[in-house]
């Protein structure tokens, strides 16, 4: 019986032990299951986090490039791809020095990253030049930072494209230059006008004085011929005649009035040029004002005569009925000046290309077309090659050699005509034959045109009374 009991107890103990084991197993499985679920969750969350970070980097407005200490590019985001014009997989094979050559500054490759790092931390941490995939340079702002990952040092470069800012800066600098030139011109005009006033007055005095002297000389002639008949006066007459001969009095009497007239003509033409310059540049013209376009064009052609008179003849065909328009006179003058100077340069280039010496023709036309004032500036120059026609209004685009053009001229024209005056600016060009630039300006600048027309027609006094 005892063994039975023992066996019984043994079985019982075994059973409870098994139960306990089963319970434990179950608990462990549950724990395992739970931790597995947590892990899956965590993995998903992590993956989500990574995607989020990637998305942030990818969609960042600024270019982000990472590279190792040898400069090998490890990642490049969308913005950076766009800035440089590289595809992701192409860029990955490149070195940072291919994109930012000035990083080559140091000898060792590692130095280049440090060099960039130092550059971005330096005081002028501003502009550095990058090279696009097509080889064009591009102004960049770069900030580089260092990070360590998996015991490896890498670098992150944040880049910003400065093209637009540079363009605005150039335009601002240009505007400031124009303003100071304008102020200077007004001052110079004043300085010139004072002497011109007395040069003119003195010359007019000489003219009327010489008229009087001429009358006296005529009377003297008569007196002299009568004196000659008297023997006792013969020697005196001979002396006087000899004196007249020696100063060539006949010549003086012919030439003095002519010299005076030419001097007056010269003084008038100086006064006209100065007036054109003053009108052209009148400072403080940020305000909208009514401007007679024909006169503005005349002024422009006068102030830049030196640019075209050696290469071209001028033909103007102005529509006299063209009404004055409200505009920004200073800026519009700048447009006309740019277009006329460009036309002159085109003619010069055309002459050089043909090795010809015959002069070109610069034609400036104004006309009315419905609700538009149309200005056409035509040249018989080299024309614009078809390949670059689409780019000529781009900022910084220029075909002129360094120092001759900023590439801003036509971009500024476009900005002034199209954006500031709601007008149109376009061209028609035949390579080898010439170009016509068309400026269309609305007669009424905006909704104000609904106001009834002026109560009185505008008439210039000069057309009624004979102004000089």
């Amino acid at each position, binding site marked *: 019986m005892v063994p039975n009991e023992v066996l019984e107890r043994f079985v019982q103990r075994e059973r409870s032990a098994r139960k306990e084991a089963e319970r434990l197993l179950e608990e462990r499985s549950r724990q395992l299951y739970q931790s597995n679920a947590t892990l899956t969750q965590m993995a998903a969350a992590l993956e989500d986090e990574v995607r989020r970070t990637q998305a942030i980097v990818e969609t960042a407005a600024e270019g982000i490039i990472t590279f190792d200490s040898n400069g090998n590019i490890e990642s490049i985001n969308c913005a950076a791809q766009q800035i440089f014009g590289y595809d992701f997989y192409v860029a990955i094979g490149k070195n940072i020095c291919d994109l930012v050559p000035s990083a080559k500054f140091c000898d060792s490759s590692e130095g280049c990253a440090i060099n960039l790092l130092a550059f971005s931390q330096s005081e002028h941490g501003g502009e550095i030049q990058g090279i696009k995939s097509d080889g064009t340079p591009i102004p960049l702002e770069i900030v580089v930072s260092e990070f360590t990952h998996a015991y490896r040092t890498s670098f992150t470069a944040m880049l910003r494209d400065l093209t637009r800012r540079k363009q605005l800066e150039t335009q601002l600098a240009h505007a400031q230059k124009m303003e100071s030139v304008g102020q200077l011109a007004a001052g110079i005009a*004043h300085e010139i006008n004072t002497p011109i006033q007395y040069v003119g007055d003195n010359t007019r*005095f000489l003219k009327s004085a010489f008229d009087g002297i001429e009358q006296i000389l005529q009377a003297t002639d008569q007196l002299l011929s009568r004196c000659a008949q008297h023997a006792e006066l013969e020697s005196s007459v001979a002396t006087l005649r000899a004196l007249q001969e020696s100063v060539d009095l006949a010549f003086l009497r012919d030439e003095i009035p002519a010299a005076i007239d030419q001097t007056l003509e010269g003084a008038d033409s100086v006064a006209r040029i100065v007036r054109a310059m003053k009108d052209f540049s009148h400072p403080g013209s940020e305000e909208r*004002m009514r401007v007679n376009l024909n006169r503005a064009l005349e002024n422009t052609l006068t102030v830049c005569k030196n640019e075209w008179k050696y290469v071209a003849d001028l033909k103007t065909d102005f529509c006299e009925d063209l009404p*004055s328009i409200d505009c920004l006179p200073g800026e519009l003058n700048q447009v006309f000046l740019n277009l006329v100077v460009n036309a002159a340069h085109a003619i010069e280039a055309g002459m050089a290309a043909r090795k010809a010496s015959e002069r070109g023709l610069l034609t400036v036309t104004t006309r009315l077309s419905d609700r538009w004032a149309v200005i056409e500036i035509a040249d018989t120059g080299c024309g614009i090659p078809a390949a670059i026609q689409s780019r000529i209004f781009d900022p910084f685009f220029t075909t002129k050699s360094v120092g001759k053009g900023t590439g801003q001229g036509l971009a500024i024209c476009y900005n002034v005509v199209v954006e500031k005056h709601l007008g149109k600016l376009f061209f028609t060009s035949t390579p080898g034959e010439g170009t016509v630039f068309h400026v269309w300006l609305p007669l009424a600048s905006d909704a104000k045109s609904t106001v009834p027309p002026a109560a*009185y*027609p505008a008439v210039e006094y000069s057309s*009624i009374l004979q102004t*000089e």
Partner: protein
Amino acid sequence: MNKIKILFVDDEVNILQALKRMLHTYRQEWEMTFCSNSEDALRLLREQPYDVLVTDIRMPHVDGSRLLFESFLYQPETMRCVLSGYADRDQAIKVAGTAHQFLSKPCTKDAIECMVQRAQQSSERLPPGEVRRAVARISAVPCRPTVLRELNRELQLEQPNLEVVASLIASDIGMSAKIMQLVASSFFGRCTAVFCPREAVALLGVELIAGLLSEMGIFTPLLVEKEILDIEALCESSMQEAHAARDASFAVDLNERTASIACISTYLRSVGTIVLAHLFSDQYRQVKQLVAQHGLETEQAEQRILGTTSSNVGGYLLAIWGFPQHVVDAVGGNLPDKRSVQCPMISC
């Protein structure tokens, strides 16, 4: 006939000597004094009367605006003329009210001759006396109080609207006359003289007009009872008559220019009346009474009470302001000897 007395002031001796030589031909008719020191000029102006003062603006010590102002105070009847090469905005605004005419350097002999003839002619229109002294001193023909209020309100805005300003000024006779006087000079305008008040405003620019109002208070409202003069109604009816004159000119096939002259002359015809009502409101009340009670013609009544007529006053004012001869004759009537000066309003 008395010689016409002219004082030329410029700190540049060369300018004065050249003027002296060039104008030597007029020595029989003109008595000219040339003064290169503006302090001396100031003394001369206080000591003796001149018919015409021609002065530069920028001068050391006493500048042109000061001279003009002294003359304005002590010798109002002197015709005051600026002859300057350059003046900045502030200087220009300073003289806009005190000077009658504005010449810019370089100017021709004809321009100076024309200006002096204007002075002579104007004194024939209005003989020296109390009325002339008062008229020569006004900076601008008084304006409609309502329009002045509106104009001030508009100009106080951050960005005043050019069209609104132009319309307001065009709706007032006095403001129109002043703006047209200024814009015709190469000094204020750009040598583009026009017959249209709106055009004149556009050419001068809102900024300058705002300066004239805020810094110089150039326009004064006409504050007299309606019985003496109803300025609001007068401006409205003058505007209608001006339009009618224009239409009539077209109807008889006159050209655009002539029509414009007719139009603006008609519009400005009442400047004399407004000026008299402003300066001599009590006497003008009597004029009105005479007309109402005794059936006199206005001209007769004006002559009896004031010793001159409103058209004489208008003609005188527009002549010293350098308005074109056509307009002066239309407003003031032709001079008896039919002598008329054919010269531009302002040379440019």
